[in-house]
């Protein structure tokens, strides 16, 4: 008895701090990796950042000049992707959660194909997008081709997260709204979607994040042209393609590659922040005071 008690005491004295150390250590390691990355980018790229860099055109294959047209193309591609993927993804998720019985055969088939799609490497989406949107539909190398390819790529993430967050809404709410005589559409619009909003936004952010970081799916669809796009049918180079080209293909392009990467990360943080703010202040309020 005495031995066992002492062992427990020693274990408490040694193991507890060790666990604390491990937990804190892991968290610090993750944060440290991110800070190191951002620090490295700031160190190499911050001095080049300026309004002129953000607004002017690239010169000498991107070694000098800015990223104005590339920034515009990136945002347009992202806009097309979100505009196409969000309604499709939301509708599919609503079908899966609200209209199909759980474990229905069709539902499981859709779920399976989504999981397979989510695991497909992005270069495959790039080649598919090139064959389907650029060649078969005749959209050529264009922002539209690139955006639609990205939409296909982020759909699985979007649907899966939207589905999960809709399923997390308690069934009592559905029953309650039915008891109050709300139609299914009204219940969806006023109760279920607002209640699931933070999950929906999180899914959207995951999708946008993946889309912004995409290179392989875009080089064959939206292309390489670094001119300011004048329509969605123009080819436009995305930021990630620009960074890849500058660091891997253009001797002396590293400086501007760092600065462009900094802009990309800044843009991601900005989009994340905006989306989270919207989710908190705009969608949630609708439940409390519809």
């Amino acid at each position, binding site marked *: 008895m005495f031995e066992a008690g002492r062992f427990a005491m020693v274990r408490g004295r040694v193991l507890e701090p060790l666990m604390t150390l491990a937990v804190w250590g892991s968290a610090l390691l993750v944060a440290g990796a991110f800070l190191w990355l951002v620090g490295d980018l700031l160190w190499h790229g911050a001095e080049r950042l300026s309004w002129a860099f953000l607004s002017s055109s690239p010169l*000498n*294959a*991107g070694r000098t000049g800015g990223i104005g047209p590339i920034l515009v193309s990136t945002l347009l591609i992202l*806009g*097309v992707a979100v*505009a196409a993927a*969000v*309604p499709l993804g*939301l509708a599919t998720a609503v079908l899966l959660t609200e209209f199909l019985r759980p474990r229905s055969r069709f539902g499981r088939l859709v779920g399976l194909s989504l999981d397979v799609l989510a695991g497909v490497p992005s270069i495959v989406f790039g080649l598919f997008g090139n064959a389907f949107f650029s*060649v078969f539909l005749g959209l050529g*190398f264009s922002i*539209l081709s690139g955006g639609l390819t990205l939409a296909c790529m982020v759909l699985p993430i979007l649907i899966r997260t939207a589905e999960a967050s809709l399923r997390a809404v308690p069934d009592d709410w559905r029953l309650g709204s039915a008891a109050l005589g709300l139609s299914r559409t009204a219940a969806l*619009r*006023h109760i279920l*979607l*607002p209640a699931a909003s933070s999950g929906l936004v999180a899914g959207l952010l995951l999708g946008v994040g993946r889309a912004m970081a995409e290179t392989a799916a875009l*080089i*064959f669809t939206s*292309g*390489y*042209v*670094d*001119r300011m796009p*004048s*329509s*969605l*049918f123009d*080819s436009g180079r995305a930021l990630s393609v620009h960074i890849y*080209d500058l*660091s*891997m*293909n*253009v*001797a*002396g*392009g590293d400086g501007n590659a760092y600065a462009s990467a900094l802009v990309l990360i800044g843009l991601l943080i900005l989009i994340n922040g905006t989306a989270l703010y919207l989710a908190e202040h705009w*969608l949630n309020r*609708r439940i409390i005071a519809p």
Partner: protein
Amino acid sequence: MPRLSLNRYLSALSVMLLVATTASIPQAAERKLVLTGSSTLAPLVAEIGKRFEQENPGVRVDVQSGGSSRGIADARSGLADIGLVSRALKPDEQDLKSFTIALDGITLIVHKDNPVQTLTDPQIVDIYTGKITRWRAVGGADRPITVVNKAEGRSTLELFLHHFQLKSGDITAHVVIGENQQGIKTVAGNTSAIGYVSIGTAEYEVSQGVPIKLLPMAGVDASVENVRNGRFPLARPLNLVTKAESEGLVRQFIDFSRSERVHDLVEAQYFVPLAH
């Protein structure tokens, strides 16, 4: 989705469609050249394209990257007006016409701290086929050799194999890379590595203090000058290729790309302009 955001979404979509349709109308009147292919050539040709656009208002030059094999395929299928191919055409590609716009030399590079000053051709072959695996066998330190090779389908790989009479399957590589810069960065970060890259970019990186060393080939120093005068044994032409006899705008662009008016652009991308 709440009503407000649905409306916003629809209006944003309609604005985008409106912009897309209205903005695309005037372009029908523009003349457009599409060029696709070699990622090595793409930055140079994009710069040539910009100057060509300035001198010929109403013309648009769209350059797409993707590799020499793609340049061949797109020129054949008509998807591109001109293909970009960073090597000479092969015997089974003689249905295409090629126009050289610049030269590019390829040489072997090692880390600056590697004491090896030169390698003979048989030594290079033995290193790349795995018969020599330690630097000591060729006069270096007692360290294993890290062989850096190019990925399948890269023109530099094909040129290298052809020059040393090797087959792709003979090579035992430890690192397989894609673009030029990746090769330079790999060797700069590994004192035991050996790789082969474009001479122009390697010379530039050395001048920037990147710790790499260019090895001479068959006794000829690896320099842009020796590529220009034809003495360096391992060089490749950078080509524009077309399917048929070129005419009109395509012809005009090819002539422009081969003229002295783009020499500064060729040199700015660390390639070797044609002698005129």
